[in-house]
């Protein structure tokens, strides 16, 4: 039978949503025991991923990855978060990565969507335009 990992993730979220302190710890322990009983531990990673996605959606959080050529200073980060918050209207969970091959600019990943404002991308677009 195909395992519906999403259903497990949603169930877990619903049980620990309103739980406090010790309660959530027991709930998670129980959940893991249930997975073990149902032989579902191999799909635990998938359930975790689904849980994160569902949690972010339910709590209004946008997980965004920002890639830059050089490491961002904390002021730049704050500025970026502030702007993203204004655009998306959601709480921002920002992850940063340094990719020197971008040369300059900024590349944002929001789920499936990609906003590529890096110099690398612009230069390759220019190259294509000049060749054709």
């Amino acid at each position, binding site marked *: 039978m195909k395992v519906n990992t999403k259903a497990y993730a949603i169930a877990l979220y619903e049980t620990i949503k309103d739980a406090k302190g010790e309660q959530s710890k027991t709930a998670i322990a129980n959940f893991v025991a249930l997975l073990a009983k149902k032989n579902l531990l191999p799909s635990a990673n998938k359930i975790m991923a689904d849980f994160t996605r569902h949690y972010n959606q339910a709590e209004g959080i946008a997980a965004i990855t920002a890639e830059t050529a050089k490491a961002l200073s904390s002021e730049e980060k704050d500025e970026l978060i502030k702007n993203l918050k204004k655009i998306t209207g959601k709480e921002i969970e920002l992850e940063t990565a340094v990719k020197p091959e971008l040369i300059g600019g900024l590349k944002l*990943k929001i*789920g*499936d*969507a*990609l*906003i*590529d*404002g890096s110099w690398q*991308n*612009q230069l390759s*677009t*220019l190259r294509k*335009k*000049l060749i054709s």
Partner: protein
Amino acid sequence: MNKDQIIEQIKAQIKDFQAKVKTEKVGAVTEVGDGIAKISGLGEAMVSEMLDFGNDIFGVALNLDEDSVGAIILGEYEKIKEGDTVKSTGRILEVPVGEAVIGRVVNPLGEPLDGQGAIKTDVFYPVEKIAPRVITRQPVNTPLQTGIKAIDAMIPIGRGQRELIIGDRQTGKTAIAIDAIINQKGQDVICIYVAIGQKEAKISRILTELTNNGAMDYTAIVLAGASDPASLLYLAPFAGCAMGEYFMDKGKDVLVIYDDLSKQAVAYRQLSLLLKRPPGREAYPGDVFYLHSRLLERAARLNEKYGGGSLTALPIIETQAGDISAYIPTNVISITDGQIFLESDLFFQGIRPAINTGLSVSRVGSAAQIKAMKQVAGKMKLEMAQYRELAAFAQFGSDLDEATKKQINLGARLTEVLKQGQYEPMPVAQQVLIIYAAINGLLDDVAVENVKTFETGLIKYAVAHTKALLDKIAKEKALSPEIEAEVKKVIAEYKQTFAVND
């Protein structure tokens, strides 16, 4: 142009350049191999949308799952690594079409393979297109002359028809198709030859033959060779069809040959199994019938309101040991408007083209023949059927009554007349002449082994002495009593000289 000018020009171009930053939907490759890729993400991908793998490698999304996309890769999948970014393009797969592809050899993506430079055109047609609807069509009523006597006389093909050529390996399937292309010279028909999974040596031979016969002036070859990825083999007929549709929409007549669809089905089976679609009969996926039916349905004859163009399809299917009841042959037989069945037994008896006239049919029938041909060939199919039946008995020899003997004599001569060499298509007027002679018993006093020489002689004589008569038949398209009398006279005249030379 000197280099300063070039630099200035580039400077100007760069000055105006403004890269627009836009949101794109991306995914990441999670699995790749054997010409297919599994991609996670790509939330809004559409079925048969083109996907950009970067480095000028493209793919087509075929399977849309909850959180992944199964795609076929068009090109070298060895360069794609796990984790690579894949962008959706929002376009469905298109091929360049237009006059620029005529005389060229291209791959199913429209890229040139003949080393004669890029295909310069700005018209693109989608590879998958809905077939012309019923109000745009009209019945098939104009013949498409193949130049092969056996076909034009007994299994006529009309413009807009789909006629299957089926037979074992080495029975002359491709030969019929190539002859049909060569015979379109001067007929204002555009030909597209789609080679699927063929040996490239064979294609090179065909290309030489077509060039030598001047047929490349109106022919394009779409080639997906035996060593190309299965995804290209699967796409090739659709690409060829799209190139033909351009001319059909322009009001022209098009002949498209798919050589052969059994290899395309095998390629599609490979892709489907790798994409984990469930296998059905002979391990083909459930939609293999739809694969061929939607392709062949695109053959059409449009009515005058829609330009009056036509697209004739000659699909080829290779059978194993004459088994036409295998899955793919039965499918395609039921889709097409008839089939030309080739047999290796006949081939080895020296009856070439090795057409089994009993099993071959054309469901469009005599609507796709000129009147003159109808008049002479009407009885032919029946005579041949009776001959085959009697010939089996006659092999036991001994006493046969007069009527049977006559029937066998006639049948033997007809069989002889229907033999034809490769790359020797015959104009329809000449066909009418020789078939008229045979069917009306005017060859009965020529020995069976001399029929062939008589035929060549008669045609040569007619072309040399009574060219006007042949032109008249071709122009009036019917045998009026006067023309018939003339035809009789020519045959009688030649017979005299033939008897003298004999």
